[in-house]
């Protein structure tokens, strides 16, 4: 399958610099290869980034056809590698039919990208933004596989608002597929694992999810969005419990649930000539529970309330050079931003409940359809690294480069 994807991309690259059209089927795609290095003890989001890694790529090719002027169909195949997950396995990124009745009403059905915030729909393609890593509270790499797309249906449209601009809306209903071998499932395992009983998710079931997205685009370069995702999902996990005193081992099975998950994101982007400013705020509320089929482990139900925000700026100095940066803060518990809850429970240091990042990016567009980037992060805290509970450095760095060809 990987060879098939490569062959399709090579076929596409031999055509026009913009797109390939075969019997009315339009083909686009991108190939993006990077290198990432983080502080040795903090591997994120590539599992072996501490030692420096090339397991950092994204490839996609999409096909679309206009069946008639009102009806389109298409799909995108995506493969990515982040070390211990992704592994360049080809997945169906999106695939849907799109019937546009009028400007203010259209319908889509299939696997549809989820419009969360300013950039979630387009986050796969590195060429569509300034930064290599979008701010991790709103665009968390470990959640990319679960909030990428919804399998179901949507209605959408564009409503003129006179001199105030245009309001675009999308409402979606369906389920969010959560692959067992993906980063999300692994991340959920981390929530219910303990030091003595590391667990692996063996089954995930998603309940019906609802997504709403409003975008107000003004005539003066301001774009404001308000998005929400509402869902629940549950599953099972298994592992081995090792008694810390006797070292005796017993099997563990756990039923876990993330219930009543409500995510809201508010975003504003402003374009003024070559300057792009953006800010977003996201808050999540949900209940995590675990029912362990082992008397040595205590069942729990915990209400979670996290949030985070960022401000970013990017300026394009020339046709081929852009400089950008952002500052972001993420908190596991927005009611105790100092991490005191975590400390009181004795499960870690306060700085493991937040992540504060300063990011600087250089983007180069040396020739058409080629993008090169270099990016540096200075980070305080490790909340996003819950998969790796042994992350031992509070203050750490991340440096990444990426080359992307798109058509």
């Amino acid at each position: 399958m990987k060879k098939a994807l490569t062959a399709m991309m090579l076929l596409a690259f031999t055509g026009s610099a913009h797109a390939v059209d075969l019997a009315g089927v339009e083909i686009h795609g991108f190939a993006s290869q990077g290198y990432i290095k983080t502080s040795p003890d903090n591997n994120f989001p590539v599992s072996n980034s501490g030692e420096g890694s090339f397991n950092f790529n994204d490839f996609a090719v999409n096909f679309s056809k206009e069946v008639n002027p009102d009806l389109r169909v298409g799909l995108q195949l995506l493969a990515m590698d982040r070390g211990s997950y992704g592994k360049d396995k080809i997945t169906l990124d999106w695939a849907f039919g799109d019937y546009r009745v009028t400007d203010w009403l259209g319908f889509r059905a299939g696997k549809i990208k989820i419009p969360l915030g300013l950039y979630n729909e387009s986050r796969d393609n590195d060429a569509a933004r300034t930064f290599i890593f979008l701010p991790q509270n709103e665009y968390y790499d470990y959640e990319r596989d679960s909030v990428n797309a919804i399998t179901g249906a949507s209605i959408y449209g564009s409503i003129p608002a006179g001199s105030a601009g245009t309001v675009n809306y999308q409402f979606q209903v369906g389920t969010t597929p959560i692959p067992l071998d993906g980063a999300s499932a692994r991340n959920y395992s981390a929530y219910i694992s303990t030091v003595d009983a590391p667990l692996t998710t063996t089954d995930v079931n998603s309940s019906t999810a609802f997504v709403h997205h409003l975008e107000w685009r003004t005539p003066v370069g301001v774009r404001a969005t308000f998005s929400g995702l509402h869902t629940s999902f549950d599953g099972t996990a298994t592992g081995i419990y090792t008694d810390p005193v006797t070292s005796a081992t017993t099997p563990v099975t756990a039923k876990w649930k993330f219930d009543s998950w409500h995510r809201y994101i508010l975003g504003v982007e402003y374009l003024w000539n070559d300057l792009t400013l953006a800010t977003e705020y996201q808050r999540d509320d949900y209940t995590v529970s675990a029912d362990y089929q082992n008397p040595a482990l205590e069942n729990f139900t915990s209400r979670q309330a996290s949030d985070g925000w960022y401000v970013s700026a990017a300026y394009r100095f020339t046709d081929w050079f852009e400089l950008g940066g952002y500052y972001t803060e993420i908190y596991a518990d927005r009611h105790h931003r100092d991490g005191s809850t975590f400390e009181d429970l004795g499960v870690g240091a306060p700085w493991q409940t937040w992540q504060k990042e300063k990011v600087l990016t250089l983007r180069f567009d040396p020739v058409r359809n080629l993008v090169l980037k270099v990016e540096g992060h200075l980070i305080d805290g490790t909340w996003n690294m819950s998969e790796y509970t042994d992350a031992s450095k509070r203050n750490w760095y991340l440096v990444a480069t990426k080359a992307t060809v798109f058509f």
Partner: protein
Amino acid sequence: MFHPKRFCITGTKILLLLCLIAWGHASAHAAGFIVIANKSVVESTLTRAELQGIYLGEKVKWGNRKHIKIAVLEEERTLKEFLQVMLGKTPSQFDQHWVRMVTTGKASLPPAFPDTQQMIDFVAKTPNAIGFVAAGQPGDSVKTIAIK
């Protein structure tokens, strides 16, 4: 402590900034381009907001419900001015918008033409097409759309 004078100075600064932003967007209306359309298009005028919607892939239907076919002129000077005045975007911002559109399956990439004559020929022969060229006489094969 609340200082009325400081509050007024801050308010004035914000007002001036907003005026500057509005002026920056409004002052660019002395256009060196014209918007053209296929003669099958019933509209003779469009608002700037409507044209923005068309070139961002949001407004996809003419008033007679026919599907709009947009075309882009690659000639650098005209493209830059059209995008800045009508969409408030630079060419790179416009390119990234359409990369996002095709990467998410929302739309087909609009055809792009390196020179004015190719653009006029495409718009003339494509029903429901709209495009833009440098100011001048586009000829009788297409109609001119006034922007309000």
